[in-house]
């Protein structure tokens, strides 16, 4: 590429700033999408690949079969790992990984420093020395031979060392003490974090507690207990599976057979694990289909962007035909012109790439839920760079081919005589229109989707739930031993009762939540015994009145220490086959241990779960235990200005009873909103998709408008000479595009209607899709389209007809 080429290319792009920037916007969308998708997909597909001899590592998992239905499970029985370790041949590693739960880790500081407390760490595992034989940890302090010699020892990763001992050099930590709940552990090693994405995510490693290792339980499968085997010999793997299976059958086989149940140990290779949803124990696996979906989306956006580029640059061909003609006359060969066009595209791609960078960096901040958590840590700049370079080259070639072909097809003499238009139009135009229709179908689909989703979400928040929740805040009762969880929760209730800023206090489960406590009861009905599987909520006697749940028969619960009376909802009445609420009063529900509970009251149905599910039977029962009641519900006075003060009173009283527990409150409204978090996330993504598709459609439409305005220059000139007004001409030019968008609306509406109905089916309580929703969405699309074409239309209409007619 000569200096001349670079200079003229840049000059051309600058002169056509508008088109250049439209192209840049379009392509940066495509590039950003591909960049993000590639980062995610590359990360997910690189999982475990770099583990040494990864193809020799297998996870032992269970396959259950019940009534012909098979299901896989990651957990194993505790008896299996010790048996296999004992039976393993030389060179075979048996690696149990048992997740360990502790309330908190405390590091007592050296003098003058603050105590560091980490609550409920989910990345602690118990394992054997074999764990460090299987994975290539680099030791900063200690070594794998001695790390697990003492049962109360801990190996931590460098990252964890930073949060536990922020001021200390990780290599000096050997022998430091970590209080694990009430037991002292000693740091016996510090390792560097694995340098590659791995299914082994734990940050703290300790020997498996003796109690767990010697527990020869063969009945319980638990997803906290995982087992890996590393061997290069498939026979020894088979051998181990057989030994395990034999022992399992001896001990638990009979019980399983009674229930019509079979359990079989089997293996899944480590290299497949990341995509094995059924063996997911910690939410780290991903769905392969989602990956392919992402690739499709990335490719699709890139395709749209390229098509737009082609569209916009071919729309430019007539305008630059003269230049091309001159160059041809002066002896430029087709290769030279093609190369020149490639150079232009390449420049635009490079600029787009630079513009994409902030988009790509911003996305994880705006949509963190769609980016794998530790992706950033392992991103490899070289691979990404290579990919992006490849992408730019690909786009350059792909997007240039057709415009370059058109340029070369132009005949010099005709371009010099201004005859080009006729050669570019014709069939091309219908193809372009088809493309625009296609783009607007997608945009319209998303507009309708975004609209309906927001209506439904508003509906979920504004619907009468059967209880009132204004000005109610919830406070979770402390549940950890060191937080005085054993303090009688009613003390806090009493303490708050005397303050005027608080109208009422109740204890109990959240009125609307996805948590499910349930049991099966027998009910003696006229037609024989009815089995009732129902959830229950533990509440105190103020719960019903605080939430203004209507009692329609009988009386409220009496405060008792354990479950004694029950209040049921209307649906339970119906499920039990009773004719009226009054009829239920005095009847008994019998638990499997033959304890009978009298029904003392019936309340009106309220939504105890999200609006996705229908109202089910529900029992309200009494309790006085904090681990059953779980939550304080505090109704504030309606005077908002006093709330701040009330909160500080609440905190003061809290600290008196629970000095070690943080005081955190959440408004009931907020809690209810959080039930639809998934939907809110989807809406956020749909909003983005709507914006992007609208933008892309507008770019395409703008290109078409430009071309049309150019082609009709002469027609417009003649019309103006004959007396047409500017408004008339703008209308004339816009009419065609409105037609295109109308066609798109017609195609998109039924598709959107169908898809949104599918989405709404997730909700037992939902809005009805109305015709005017489509009308609003359609009107939006038309307005957007009109704004897009108006620039070219007005420009064409304002042009002096003398100029446009002089050409010939």
């Amino acid at each position: 590429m000569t200096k001349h080429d670079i200079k003229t290319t840049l000059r051309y792009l600058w002169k056509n700033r508008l088109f250049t920037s439209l192209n840049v916007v379009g392509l940066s969308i495509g590039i950003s999408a591909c960049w993000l998708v590639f980062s995610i997909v590359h990360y997910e597909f690189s999982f475990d690949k770099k583990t040494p001899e990864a193809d020799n590592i297998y996870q032992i998992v269970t396959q259950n079969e019940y009534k012909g239905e098979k299901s896989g499970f990651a957990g194993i029985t505790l008896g299996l790992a010790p048996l296999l370790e004992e039976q393993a041949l030389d060179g075979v590693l048996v690696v149990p990984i048992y997740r360990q739960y502790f309330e908190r880790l405390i590091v007592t500081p050296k003098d003058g420093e603050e105590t560091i407390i980490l609550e409920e760490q989910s990345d602690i595992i118990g394992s054997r020395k074999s764990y460090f034989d299987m994975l290539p940890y680099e030791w900063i302090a200690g070594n794998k031979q001695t790390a697990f010699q003492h049962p109360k020892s801990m190996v931590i990763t460098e990252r964890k060392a930073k949060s536990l001992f922020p001021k200390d050099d990780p290599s000096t930590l050997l022998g430091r003490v970590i209080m694990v709940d009430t037991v002292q552990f000693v740091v016996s090693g510090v390792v560097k974090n694995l340098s590659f994405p791995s299914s082994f995510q734990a940050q703290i490693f300790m020997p498996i507690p003796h109690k767990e290792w010697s527990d020869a339980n063969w009945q319980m499968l638990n997803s906290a207990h995982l087992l890996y085997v590393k061997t290069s010999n498939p026979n020894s793997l088979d051998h181990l599976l057989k030994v395990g299976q034999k022992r399992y059958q001896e001990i638990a086989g009979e019980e399983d057979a009674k229930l019509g149940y079979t359990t079989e140990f089997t293996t899944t290779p480590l290299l497949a694990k990341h995509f094995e949803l059924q063996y997911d124990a910690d939410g780290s696996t991903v769905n392969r289909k989602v990956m392919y979906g992402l690739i499709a989306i990335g490719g699709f956006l890139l395709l749209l962007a390229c098509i737009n580029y082609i569209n916009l640059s071919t729309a430019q061909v007539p305008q630059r035909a003269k230049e091309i003609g001159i160059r041809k006359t002066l002896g430029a060969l087709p290769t030279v012109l093609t190369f020149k066009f490639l150079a232009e595209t390449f420049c635009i791609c490079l600029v787009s790439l630079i513009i994409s960078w902030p988009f790509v960096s911003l996305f994880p901040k705006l949509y963190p839920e769609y980016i794998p958590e530790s992706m950033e840590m392992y991103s490899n700049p070289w691979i990404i760079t290579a990919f992006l370079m490849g992408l730019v080259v690909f786009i350059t070639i792909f997007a240039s081919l057709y415009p370059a072909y058109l340029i070369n097809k132009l005949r010099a003499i005709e371009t010099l005589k201004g005859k080009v238009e006729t050669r570019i139009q014709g069939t091309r135009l219908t193809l372009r229109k088809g493309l625009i229709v296609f783009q607007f179908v997608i945009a319209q689909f998303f507009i309708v989707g975004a609209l309906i989703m927001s209506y439904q979400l508003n509906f979920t928040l504004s619907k009468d739930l059967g209880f009132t929740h204004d000005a109610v805040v919830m406070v979770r009762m402390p549940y950890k031993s060191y937080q005085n969880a054993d303090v009688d929760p009613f003390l806090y209730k009493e303490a708050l009762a005397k303050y005027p800023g608080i109208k009422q206090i109740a204890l109990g489960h959240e009125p609307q939540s996805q948590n499910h406590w349930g049991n099966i009861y027998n009910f003696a009905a006229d037609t024989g015994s009815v089995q009732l599987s129902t959830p229950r909520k533990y509440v105190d006697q103020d719960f019903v009145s605080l939430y203004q749940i209507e009692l329609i028969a009988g009386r409220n619960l009496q405060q008792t220490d354990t479950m004694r009376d029950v209040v049921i909802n209307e649906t339970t009445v119906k499920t039990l086959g009773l004719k009226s609420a009054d009829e239920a009063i005095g009847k008994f529900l019998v638990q499997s241990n033959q304890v009978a509970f009298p029904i003392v009251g019936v309340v009106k149905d309220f939504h105890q779960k999200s609006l996705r599910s229908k109202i089910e039977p529900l029992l309200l029962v009494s309790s006085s235990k904090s681990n059953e009641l779980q939550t304080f519900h505090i109704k504030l006075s309606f005077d908002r200005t006093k709330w701040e003060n009330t909160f500080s009173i609440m905190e003061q009283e809290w600290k008196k009873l629970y000095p070690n527990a943080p005081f955190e409150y959440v408004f009931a409204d907020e809690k209810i909103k959080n039930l639809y978090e998934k939907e809110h996330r989807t809406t956020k993504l749909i909003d983005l998709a709507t914006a992007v598709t609208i933008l892309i459609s507008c770019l395409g439409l703008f290109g078409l408008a430009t071309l049309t305005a150019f082609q009709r220059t002469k027609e417009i000139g003649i019309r103006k000479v004959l007396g047409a007004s500017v408004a008339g001409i703008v209308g004339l030019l816009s009419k065609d595009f409105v037609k295109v968008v109308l066609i798109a609306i017609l195609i998109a509406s039924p598709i959107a209607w169908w898809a949104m109905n599918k989405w709404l089916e997730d909700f037992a309580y939902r809005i009805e899709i109305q015709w005017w929703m489509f009308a609003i969405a359609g009107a939006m699309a038309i307005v957007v389209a009109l704004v897009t074409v108006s620039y070219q239309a007005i420009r064409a209409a304002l042009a002096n007809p003398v100029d446009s007619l002089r050409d010939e």
Partner: protein
Amino acid sequence: MIKITNLQKFYRTEEVETVALNDLNIHVQEGEFVAVMGPSGCGKSTLLNIIGLLDDLDEGSYVFNNVEVAKFNERKRSDLRKHNIGFVFQSFNLIDELTVFENVELPLIYTNVPAAERKKRVEEVLEKVQIMHRRNHFPQQLSGGQQQRVAVARAVVNNPKLILADEPTGNLDSSNGNEVMNLLTELNEAGTTIVMVTHSEHDAKFSDRVIRMLDGQVIMETTTV
């Protein structure tokens, strides 16, 4: 230098076939200055395009510099054209995105002349047409006469044997027009063959010979004194 015999050229649309050039014979000697005249639509420009190898002919023979070029493909034509022929158009046809210097430099780039040599030759020719002081301006910043001088400079920078001029003064006032005609005459006197299409009897007087055309045929040839 140019020997065209029995040239036929048709334009076809779906329904009509128009004869643009009909059984036309033309000879141009090396070093000659020929003017082609005739009413609009008589085929002058078509003839010029064929001579300039921008358009192909349907029947007949075209010998350029003793080589039969009638059956040349696009690539060969382009090659022959860029080394031997310079063009001057009525509407100048300068590239708006390029400066005066770059416009004139363009033919040299396409004939792979090294950069240093290009600079030298472009400057020489810009001096010659007296537009050197405007070398870094863009075409829109020049007057019509200046633009046409640049176009002439571009046409001659490659030292072509033949210059084809399509109404070179058509868009110029008379004094600018005379300037351009004087330039062409100087070039002709230096040995360049010139074929010029014109409507102007005044311009035609600068030539050695006038060919008059009507309806795609030569009807008269006159030698000027």
